[in-house]
């Protein structure tokens, strides 16, 4: 009532209907979203039906998609991307949970530890990853050096040179970069759990592990699930870590969808084919997010009732 009381004179003066007035109010935001999100998305979809290169473009229908569907390499890339995401997100969550639990424990100097967790997140990703690249290096890398020092290997190990070790090395670095944020979010959630619940459980004889399992985990479950979703999307699209370490190599061992897309669209300047890949990524992530949000909703309903 108050609102219409205030807006009515404006509408009367300008001769606008209520709906038109409402559209007018949201038009700046709409324009912004249109330019930043909707137009690039539409343009990407349009491009994916062309054979656009620097030289020009012409409509090719579903040819780009057909080529993707027919390519076993592309299926490998999709599978690798999901494996990459699953492994990295799982590790980030497990490490984050362990880290948050330790930081939440009543230990002396925990404020200091809380600060010490931050560097991987605070250091610019490129700098941190270059550091890792050096550590992985076979000639002057720290890891290879230590392994030889302790006699675990005879010869130099160039971790980024072989397919399997390059993939897992990239995972380790990605986990290193991604864990602090997960840790801090889970820590915040843990600190939000009422102390009374722990005390009540303690009075009833529940030990540390029991309290963790039956109070902490259920209480922070909604945060774990949302962190898993966010982390999954970021990891799926994680580009710079892999690019700096291996550029997707050796022989495609670390090529995820986003790396593949970049290589095709930007390095090879085959915009049409790149756009088709981008559309596949958007579709996969959208489906993934939908499933996840459905799941999150159920988790919240189960654990959320205070």
């Amino acid at each position, binding site marked *: 009532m108050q609102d219409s009381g205030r807006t009515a004179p404006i509408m009367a003066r300008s001769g606008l209907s209520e709906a038109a007035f409402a559209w007018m109010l949201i038009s700046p935001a709409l324009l912004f979203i249109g330019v930043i999100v909707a137009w690039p998305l539409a343009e990407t979809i349009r491009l994916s039906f062309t054979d656009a290169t620097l030289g020009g473009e012409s409509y090719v229908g579903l040819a780009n998609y057909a080529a993707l569907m027919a390519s076993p390499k592309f299926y490998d890339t999709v599978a690798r991307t999901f494996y990459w995401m699953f492994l990295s997100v799982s590790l980030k969550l497990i490490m984050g949970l362990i880290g948050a639990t330790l930081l939440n424990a009543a230990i002396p100097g925990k404020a200091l530890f809380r600060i010490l967790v931050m560097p991987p997140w605070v250091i610019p990703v490129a700098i941190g990853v270059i550091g890792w690249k050096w550590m992985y290096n076979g000639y002057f890398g720290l890891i290879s050096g230590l392994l030889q020092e302790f006699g675990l290997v005879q010869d130099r190990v160039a971790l980024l040179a072989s397919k399997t070790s390059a993939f897992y090395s990239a995972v380790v670095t990605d986990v290193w970069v991604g864990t602090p944020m997960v840790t801090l979010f889970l820590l915040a959630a843990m600190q939000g759990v009422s102390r009374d619940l722990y*005390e*009540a459980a303690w*009075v009833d*004889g529940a030990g540390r592990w029991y309290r963790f399992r039956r*109070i902490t985990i259920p209480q922070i*479950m909604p945060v774990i699930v949302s962190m898993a979703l966010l982390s999954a999307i970021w990891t799926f699209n994680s580009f710079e870590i892999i690019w700096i370490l291996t550029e997707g190599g050796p022989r495609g061992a670390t090529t995820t969808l986003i790396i593949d897309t970049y290589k095709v669209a930007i390095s090879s300047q085959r915009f049409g084919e790149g756009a088709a890949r981008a559309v596949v990524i958007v579709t996969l992530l959208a489906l993934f997010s939908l499933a996840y949000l459905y799941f999150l909703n159920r988790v919240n309903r*189960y654990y959320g*009732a*205070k």
Partner: protein
Amino acid sequence: MARLELSHLTKSFGTAKVLHGIDLAVRDREFVVFVGPSGCGKSTLLRIIAGLEEASSGRILIDGVDVSRAAPVDRGISMVFQSYALYPHLTVFENIAFPLRVARLPEEEVRQKVGRAADILQLNDKLHLKPGQLSGGQRQRVAIGRSIVRNPRVFLFDEPLSNLDAALRGEMRVELSALQRDLDATMIYVTHDQIEAMTMAHRIVVLNKGRIEQFGTPMELYHHPATRFVATFIGQPNMNLLPATVVGTGPDGLTVDITGGARITLPVAFGDAKIGDTVEVGIRPENLTLGAGLTMKLRVLERLGGVAIAYGVMLGGPKICAALAGDSLLHEGEDIGLSFAPQDAHVFDANGAVMPRLQAPSLADEQRK
């Protein structure tokens, strides 16, 4: 069920001393209430008994066994928290069953014990619900249910009713008293509400600034408050304290001049009080009647129906409050005369210690409800 003894219990947080040598003996099957203003140390004392805090010194004995260093679960206590501390993700059944699950009892026994607790607390049709779907009173009952199933030797309650609205609080008070009788258990109950203390306790511990001011039955505290603090804390509305000067001592008691009022001889054991000492005469609002002696300028009159509470000031300044007959014909702003029977008065010396009354009502010396 069990006896509980505390001996020389102290507690400091850093340099702040919150409990100064508490000595207390709670009898088997007794309902004892710790009462006091916020910050008096009552919750800390309860948490020490529970084992959630460690005492800085002193001992806790349950049935004669020193449990000062024992884990909460090994003390045979259970605790109901002010916030209820229910697990939001578990059903009412699992909340009540929690201690039994911790103890890994067989499913059959769990069902049986939870069922019995639910019977006592009338929660049978709520067992499948989550705490979020319950009302405040029902949540409170679930919290009590969780403490019942363990068959503790001592029940501890930390302000369990303070999150409830007034009507429900009155109801739960009656339920808790009945529950104590049914379970025939030793219970320690912490509250800041003197009405809860008066209505439920067998004996009340009045705490002030980390010390026990007095430990006794409700009527003992009401009729024989040991200190000025207890006198003003127990009883509603609060006891009036009227400054007075000693003008005579004799076999009938102490003769005083009440500032702005009359000269009166009060039957108290005045000890070494001398003429000229400053004392305070305590008189409960319900012991004042319309009459002659004290003059009060009536400021506010609250009519509760059966009684009318008159608030005002006496000549010379002290505030005074009287609980008068509900139909008293009085008007705000007028001067009214009040009187009281000398044997109803309490006298406190300059340190706040009481001069024992010589004529006490019969119930005052009853040892247990």
